[in-house]
């Protein structure tokens, strides 16, 4: 029994390796990238299934043979009930759409449908194997599936330019999610993030307009962001159950106050005009360059932050204590971990990183706008939740959030690519969050908690 997880991971590794080799071969044969990717995914699925069936299953049966179970088909139905139903539903929808819409029945669409069904079975089959980090696994599968779908359906989806633009937007969302993830690990919520982003965006331009050197202005903005976080943390410490609404109130006040401050003596209330320095523009613009490389620095900043966060949360005392506090306050207190210090600390980090995001967004857009943070109001929450960080605290991490951010970003890009407007995108987001969360973040029934 102990050897089983190892066996599973080896199987996954072998499947990934073979898929990578097939992808490389496809590229070498000058196949279109979409086909190569599709074949790679298909190979991966086939190998993983085969491994699961022949290598893992017998071991599992040997392990659980004492328990005894019903017929094999009955057991199969019980295990894959949800996946079978979902697969049949998708095929039904596909058939109905083919019958109803002219020109829907194309090879590309058939392949897309088959990929979807295959992915559902794959994730259902494999998620049973993976006990820890299931959400990350499902997230990765969804990410891969979405990417393949996008590459199949949208021209230029897998092109370098599109990947770059997706990564730039993902960087902004990812940076905005840093604070939300940390706060969620302690069981809190920070809804002031979008307002801090907007305020930092406007405030930075305003401060630079006053003649302050841009570097000092950014440092000032980061400090102010941290100050907002400090206020959030101190005020919400005694109100932890209502952190959501309290940070919302602070956010309202901050964004209102910033706008009043910046529009004193201005004819155009709410708009700040000014010159954004070139280096800040380069930092976040789509055609920015890092040391001569053709990669916008903001992507590298995000990657650096992500690595720092993932490693830091795993290996530093601060990170471990955060998990300890989020998991169980009482036992953390027995270890003399100061709940107050950590609670306020994560809010300070959240404020500072949000301010940084606002500053970077200024470089991206080149003009101050208070509403720039609005999309992040629920997007940060959605990314954290889709990634698999529990809002109750103690479970998850920034690595998960990165997956969530990428899923959201690839999904947006895909939906834009197939020509859906903003309102349809939002509708589909809303509908998708539920099943994704339901896959791995269901709370236990009350009767199990007594």
């Amino acid at each position, binding site marked *: 029994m102990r050897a089983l997880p190892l066996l599973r991971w080896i199987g996954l590794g072998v499947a990934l390796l073979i898929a990578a080799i097939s992808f490389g071969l496809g590229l070498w044969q000058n196949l279109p990238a979409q086909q190569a990717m599709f074949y790679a995914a298909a190979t991966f699925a086939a190998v993983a299934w085969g491994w699961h069936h022949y290598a893992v299953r017998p071991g599992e049966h040997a392990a659980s043979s004492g328990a005894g179970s019903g017929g094999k088909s009955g057991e199969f139905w019980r295990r894959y009930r949800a996946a079978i139903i979902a697969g049949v539903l998708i095929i039904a929808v596909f058939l109905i759409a083919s019958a109803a819409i002219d020109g829907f029945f194309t090879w590309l669409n058939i392949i897309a449908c088959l990929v979807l069904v295959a992915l559902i079975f794959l994730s259902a089959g494999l998620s049973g194997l993976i006990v820890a980090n299931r959400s990350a696994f499902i997230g990765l599968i969804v990410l891969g599936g979405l990417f393949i779908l996008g590459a199949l359906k949208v021209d230029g989806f897998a092109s370098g330019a599109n990947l770059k633009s997706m990564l730039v937007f993902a960087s902004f969302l990812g940076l905005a999610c840093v604070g939300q993830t940390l706060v969620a690990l302690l069981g809190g919520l920070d809804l002031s993030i979008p307002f801090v982003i907007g305020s930092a965006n406007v405030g930075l331009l305003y401060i630079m307009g006053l003649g302050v050197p841009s570097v000092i202005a950014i440092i000032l903005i980061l400090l102010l962001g941290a100050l907002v976080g400090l206020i959030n943390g101190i005020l919400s410490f005694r109100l932890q159950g209502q952190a959501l609404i309290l940070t919302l109130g602070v956010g309202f006040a901050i964004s209102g106050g910033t706008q009043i401050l910046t529009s004193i003596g201005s004819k155009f209330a*709410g708009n700040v005009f000014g010159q954004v320095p070139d280096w800040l523009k380069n930092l976040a613009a789509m055609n920015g360059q890092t040391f001569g490389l053709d990669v916008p620095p903001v992507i590298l900043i995000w990657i650096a932050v992500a690595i720092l966060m993932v490693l830091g949360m795993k290996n530093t005392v601060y990170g471990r204590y955060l998990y300890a506090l989020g998991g169980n306050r009482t036992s953390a207190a027995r270890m003399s971990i100061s709940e107050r210090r950590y609670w306020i600390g994560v809010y300070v980090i959240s404020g500072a990183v949000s301010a940084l995001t606002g500053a970077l967004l200024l470089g991206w857009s080149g003009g101050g706008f208070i509403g720039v943070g609005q999309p992040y109001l629920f997007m940060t929450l959605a990314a954290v939740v889709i990634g698999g960080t529990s809002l109750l605290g103690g479970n998850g991490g920034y690595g998960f959030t990165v997956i969530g951010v990428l899923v959201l970003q690839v999904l947006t890009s895909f939906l834009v690519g197939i020509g859906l407007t903003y309102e349809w995108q939002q509708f589909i987001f809303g509908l998708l969050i539920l099943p994704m969360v339901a896959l791995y973040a269901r709370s236990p029934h009350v009767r199990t908690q*007594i």
Partner: protein
Amino acid sequence: MSGTAAAPRTTGSATSAYLLVPILLFFALLIVAVLRSPHLITSAGIGSAVIVATPLVLATFALMAIAIAGRGSVDLSVGPLIGFINVVLVQLFGADVISAPLEFFATAIGLGLAYQLVMGLIIVFIRVQPIIVSLSGYLALSGINLVIMQRPGGTAPEWMLPWGAGTSILSPVLAMLVVATGAWLLFARTAFFGHLRLMGSDERAAYTAGVHIGIVRIGAHLIAGVYAALAAIAYTALISSGDPTQGTTYTLISVTALVLGGTSLAGGRGGAIGSLLGALNIYLITYVLATFSFGEVQSFVTDLAYGTILVCSLLLTVALPRLQSTLKHVSPLLFFILLFIVAFGVILHATYDYSAPAGTEAGAGAAPAAAVAGAFLFEDAPARTAAAMPMLAHPVALATVLLVALLAVLRWAIAQARTRSLSPLVYLVVGAVAVLAVYMLARPAQTAAPAPATTQGAT
């Protein structure tokens, strides 16, 4: 809490101590509003206040039903749901599918019930955290609203137009508000509500006690659906058209109102009076700020004020248990009456100074001040009747007010006398103050009774 050892009767006032903050805020805002702009307490002013505040009050009720159910559920989707019902109603009317009031109400309530039933089923059976379910609903509904109607537009039916006029106090919207509030007060007396509160404060205890928590939670959602539907109808009456974009604002404002009203977002506590006051406070904040005319930065000042007041009121709610030992003996009702008397005095002062010179300028001699003072509420009809029989009306009105006040005071005095929460003496003092206030009200009438009245106040 410190009130555990107290007599059962006194805990009644202790648990409703959270009402003190909204009451205090309400009267503070009311006084400021009246001093800033006495137009508020004219017939048209109150009428428009009712029209504007009713959707907010009903949305707050909808939020409250779910917030009481616990598990930290704030229904973020209440704003988009109201928008959804609003645009569906307007589009259906535009397509000539529905037109009669009954059809409107049935459609709205049906939509609200259906949506909240789905939400409730998901929360109960799929067991995803309620906040995520509501977030998902928020995103989905605000998307679909824009699909149903791209930009604000459309028209409300003919019969609904006068609803939103807001020229008089008595309007169908007011009736809706009264019925909705009354329905909640009745609902709060049922066993179901007790189960709901029990589940909100401790779900495990409720389950162990044999409460069908699934059914109770779905019931809370259904009630929220009905209130959201009513809010949507009041909102349609207010704007007389469809608006798919109001979702975010409405959610944020009504959550603020909910918290201002003293409902605990942790579950288990909340009341109609609190939420009513909370929503009215939001309206008054907007009203007071509007009187200052900040020009371009008006909306920013409103944001700042919402945020600050929300945070302060939350902090006060935290400080409240610490003051509980002191506040235990303060009945919210008494508090309300005391502040009401103060506010009433201020209102009288404001309207008196405002309208008396107008009466003399009209050249009709000194108007009966009581008629003017009394006319602040009922300008149109009652002022004229007062003019028709000034000699008879005043003593009768005075006696009625006195009798009612005395009855009420006696009732409270007797009800409270058995407890050690408050000595009846305080009630006697309050009664005396009330009598004094009525006397003050009536005294100017005796000085200027014979003069013919004018209806100058109506302008």
